[in-house]
């Protein structure tokens, strides 16, 4: 019908552009993806790189109060330290400086 033809043409336009096709694919997989694409979410994540959860106040208070009790610690399989337990310095990924020389110099 006359109504369908223009809509079909519109659909065709969208499918033709590879970028728009990829966008449709993404939106199909993640329907709740933010409306502001390149904006604040990415940027804030970028600015927060390196942020780890560790509060020395919490840690010391917990140590003082709970001398006799077990400190709640992260489950062994958890790699992310979050706010629902008291992290210890041991929970933080150990970043030792490289004592080994670069293999490029080998």
């Amino acid at each position, binding site marked *: 019908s006359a109504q369908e033809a223009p809509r079909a043409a519109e659909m065709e336009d969208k499918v033709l552009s590879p970028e728009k096709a990829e966008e449709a694919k993404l939106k199909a*997989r993640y329907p709740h993806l933010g409306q502001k*694409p390149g904006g*604040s979410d990415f940027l804030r994540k970028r600015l927060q790189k*390196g942020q780890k959860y560790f509060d020395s106040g919490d840690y010391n208070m917990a140590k003082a109060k709970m001398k006799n009790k077990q400190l709640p610690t992260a489950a062994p399989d958890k790699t992310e330290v979050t706010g629902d337990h008291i992290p210890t310095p041991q929970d*933080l990924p150990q*970043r*030792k400086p490289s004592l080994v*020389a670069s*293999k*490029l110099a080998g």
Partner: protein
Amino acid sequence: MLRAAGPWRGCPGRAGVAGGDGGGNNEVQWCFLQVKGAIDEDVAEADIISTVEFNYTGDLLATGDKGGRVVIFQREQETKSRPVSRGEYNVYSTFQSHEPEFDYLKSLEIEEKINKIRWLPQQNAAHFLLSTNDKTIKLWKISERDKRAEGYNLKDEDGRLREPFRVTELRVPTLKPMDLMVEASPRRTFANAHTYHINSISVNSDYATYLSADDLRINLWHLEVTNRSFNIVDIKPANMEELTEVITAAEFHPHQCNVFVYSSSKGTIRLCDMRSSALSLCDQHSKFFEEPEDPSSRSFFSEIISSISDVKFSHSGRYMMTRDYLSVKVWDLNMENRPVETYQVHEYLRSKLCSLYENDCIFDKFECCWNGSDSTIMTGSYNNFFRTFERNTHRDTTLEASRESSKPRAILKPRKVCTTGKRKKDEITVDSLDFNKKILHTAWHPTDNIIAVAATNNLYLFQEKVN
């Protein structure tokens, strides 16, 4: 103004642009020279090369890695006795530049990864370079020692102090030759000036100052002064909720010491003249470079792929080049409304953006570089491919850094990615590309046709074929 990928054989020998941009029209053939690094399949994260930089003469080549280490290679001088090792680079010095830190006050882990190395021009026998991680810039002095003093009065040859009463006569210590020792020592530490992560450093042509740029601010330093720096750009909004773009790269003009540029995550470049603002805050840019976008073609990915990952001035200072996710653009500093040249690096990835977003590859930051005469530009891609674009002839070449083609003086065979259904022999399909093999960092010798290509943990050196 998009140009299709592929060689333009229809216009050979087109007259080059005046002013240091003319180059030979003979196609450069690249030969394998050397490869540095381990061959193991298991790559330790610390060994991943994060920056590559030749010094001003090209005699020294520095690399930085994720483990905070710097390795400097020196070009062998041709001697009559060893003509075969023409132009080979061998290890000159290596040192630990940065170490991992934890900022307990901000709960922030500071990586030791070297983001950038920039050499200072040589002014005496020693060499100086700046290396930076996310937060701290360091000035390193690399000096040679080939003499040692012998015959001290107060200590004996192995350094132990002599009993004073045993010293019965006075002698003058003499200098004796010793095996060459190259020492690296940190001369300055420029710290505590960046809240956000440093992405660029650039030495000024006055050779006395340099800039450091993080996501939101750019600081100007004097090389002699570590306890003070001047903030010259600040794009931090009063309300962080209003943040829409970040600084991605910055560089000083090669000749005009008052001019620098910085690029953004939105694909724009601002040129700033430090003379123009009395308060020395360059928020009012002198020039604003942006290519107009067709609003109907805008998608979720548009802004992400327009983010500029690198900006480099040409040696002549007339042009600058920017790298975004899919292309390299050359801009004439006198034309702000569009680039003068655009080169597609891997346009076939446009139909893979969904997966590249999911595996984060879409955020990979590729660098780009000019050759000495500004006639050719180079940038990396995936599958250990890298691309060169000859500006005069529009000839583009895809090459691969691989162990297979690493025989001495072996000529590199051009590679081709198959974008249609029918794959020819020796072509590779887009789906077969290895997206873990990224060439993010490349460097071109300042005058000769020697290129350094960092492929994850290996450094490849290629040289122009000489008959």
